[in-house]
């Protein structure tokens, strides 16, 4: 029932995303064109409008859904595995690592630039390296230190990578604008290529996370208690973190940093239906996908024909929302 409601939300988002844009294609025409495309008939759209629908709008909507679902699921998983309501997908340094990776390419391989394959690849690698470094560092503190050690290690690694990024930027001032506009979320240049890059990672990570949702519920009671129930805590934590991180890194590589999705979506669902991961994880994926698609509709229409960075939209709605969550959780406590 709740999943059905979430699915309706996602369907509404996808429909709005395809029908609404800076160029008015006409709702009926879009539907007509879609049937024509699927059935191989003659499209009612002109060449340019056809390209707008199939090469620009549709891949952007699908990419938004994949990235939104991934970030929300990764956020929910991180919050469970670290028992920290503030955990977001970038907690273990994925954002800082991706930023450094992107900056290095912009500074030392100029020309390959914003649109080449090198930049997403390097951002992906940077995010991976940062999280592995944080994990190794956190584990070296010993299992007794628990999830707190891992979070501290993530903060440490993130600060270090950010310092390196700023240093490289100081040496190559001309790259600053490029790197920031890349990092601030760039669904605006999305195409089928980006969809193809992220889709396998997103789907694989969703499946792994969904497979662990019962164990995440067990983990919520505490490391020792979970171990007493026969759960291999370290192994579950590693698997969940790896799955969430790889998908986050892929999301950052194709879409830049998009704030707050990983926090507000899982918390909204918790407020509405409670905290069990059996429902929380699948709902996070579906609602996260719908949320980001809606946010992107706002990003590309509110100032049309100019764009608003998607990160600005999610944070603009995310920050006040988060304030409300903090207030209500204080009252409950």
């Amino acid at each position, binding site marked *: 029932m709740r999943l059905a409601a979430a699915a309706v939300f996602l369907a509404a988002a996808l429909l709005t995303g395809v029908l609404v844009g800076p160029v008015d294609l006409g709702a009926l025409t879009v539907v007509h064109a879609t049937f024509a495309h699927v059935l191989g008939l003659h499209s009612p759209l002109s060449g340019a409008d056809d390209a*707008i629908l199939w090469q620009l709008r549709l891949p952007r909507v699908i990419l938004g859904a994949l990235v939104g679902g991934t970030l929300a699921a990764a956020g929910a998983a991180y919050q469970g595995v670290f028992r920290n309501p503030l955990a977001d997908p970038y907690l273990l340094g994925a954002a800082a690592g991706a930023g450094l990776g992107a900056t290095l390419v912009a500074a030392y391989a100029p020309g390959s630039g914003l649109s080449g394959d090198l930049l997403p690849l390097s951002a992906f690698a940077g995010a991976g390296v940062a999280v592995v470094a944080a994990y190794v560092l956190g584990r070296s503190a010993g299992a007794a230190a628990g999830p707190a050690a891992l979070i501290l290690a993530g903060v440490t690694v993130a600060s270090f990578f950010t310092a390196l990024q700023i240093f490289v930027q100081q040496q190559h001032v001309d790259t600053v604008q490029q790197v920031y*506009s890349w990092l601030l979320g760039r669904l605006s240049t999305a195409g089928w290529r980006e969809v193809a890059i992220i889709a396998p990672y997103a789907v694989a990570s969703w499946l792994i996370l969904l497979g662990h949702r019962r164990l995440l519920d067990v983990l919520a009671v505490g490391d020792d208690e979970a171990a007493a129930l026969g759960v291999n805590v370290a192994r579950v934590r590693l698997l969940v973190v790896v799955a969430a991180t790889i998908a986050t890194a892929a999301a950052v590589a194709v879409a830049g940093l998009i704030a707050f999705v990983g926090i507000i979506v899982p918390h909204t669902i918790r407020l509405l239906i409670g905290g069990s991961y059996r429902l929380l994880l699948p709902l996070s994926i579906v609602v996260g996908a719908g949320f980001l698609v809606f946010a992107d509709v706002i990003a590309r229409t509110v100032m049309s024909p100019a764009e608003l960075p998607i990160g600005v939209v999610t944070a603009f709605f995310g920050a006040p929302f988060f304030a409300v969550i903090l207030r209500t959780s204080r009252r409950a406590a």
Partner: protein
Amino acid sequence: MFRSLLLVATVAALLAVQSVSAATTPHRIISLSPTATESLFAIGAGKQVVAVDDQSDYPKRAPRTTLSGFTPNVEAIAAYRPDLVVVQYDSGDVVEALHKLNIRVLVQPSAKNLTAAYGQIRQLGNITAHKRAAAALVTRMKKAIARAVASTPHRRLAVYHELSPDYYSATSKTFIGRIYKLFGLRNIADAADSTGSGYPQLSAEYILGANPSLIVLADTRCCGQSVASVSGRPGWSNVAAVRTRSVVAIDDSVASRWGPRVVQFVQAVARVLRKR
């Protein structure tokens, strides 16, 4: 025309009086503005220049250093014992800091139009004692630009000026946008600038929908864009400019500065418009 010239001259004179207190000719100039560097060398004041900033990559013979105009270090600047420092903007209160060291500072901000750009060249000529060379350069620039503009058929074609591959553009209010106006072109970025920043980010859908007849790429060096890469973008093969091979790739530094090389920019645009 005469009135606006008079205004610019007055402003320039005021700036000169304010920034340059002593009237002696400088012989140890530091330029932290790539545009000013180009102008100084073009008017024959190159021999008086002892150091230029890390972004001043033209002309090649300019004494490029690691000095930065974005994050200027006053001690590093002072170490060159300059008697004049030209900056593009007062980053980190560098102007006041240099004044404390009794070093003359000239602020030449981004020019909003050609008149202001010519004013800055003349100002540099006055201060460096190359007044006649500066005046001659301005005359040459004006003539070359007028000739290039006159060589094209005036049609209200739509132009898209690309600053970065995520579709940041420049409106008619910007320096570069005013140049498109000289050609009578219609700038597709104008409709997108509700905040008046001059540099809106356009949506890809809108660009394809607007179907520009001319695309100018000012992101060739920073971001590796080229005629081929634009033609290869999904959905862009239908755009008029791509179909008629009216995509111009221009060195970013030529397209982003307002110095003597603006003539090259105007001529490059004129060449493509003539071919159409």
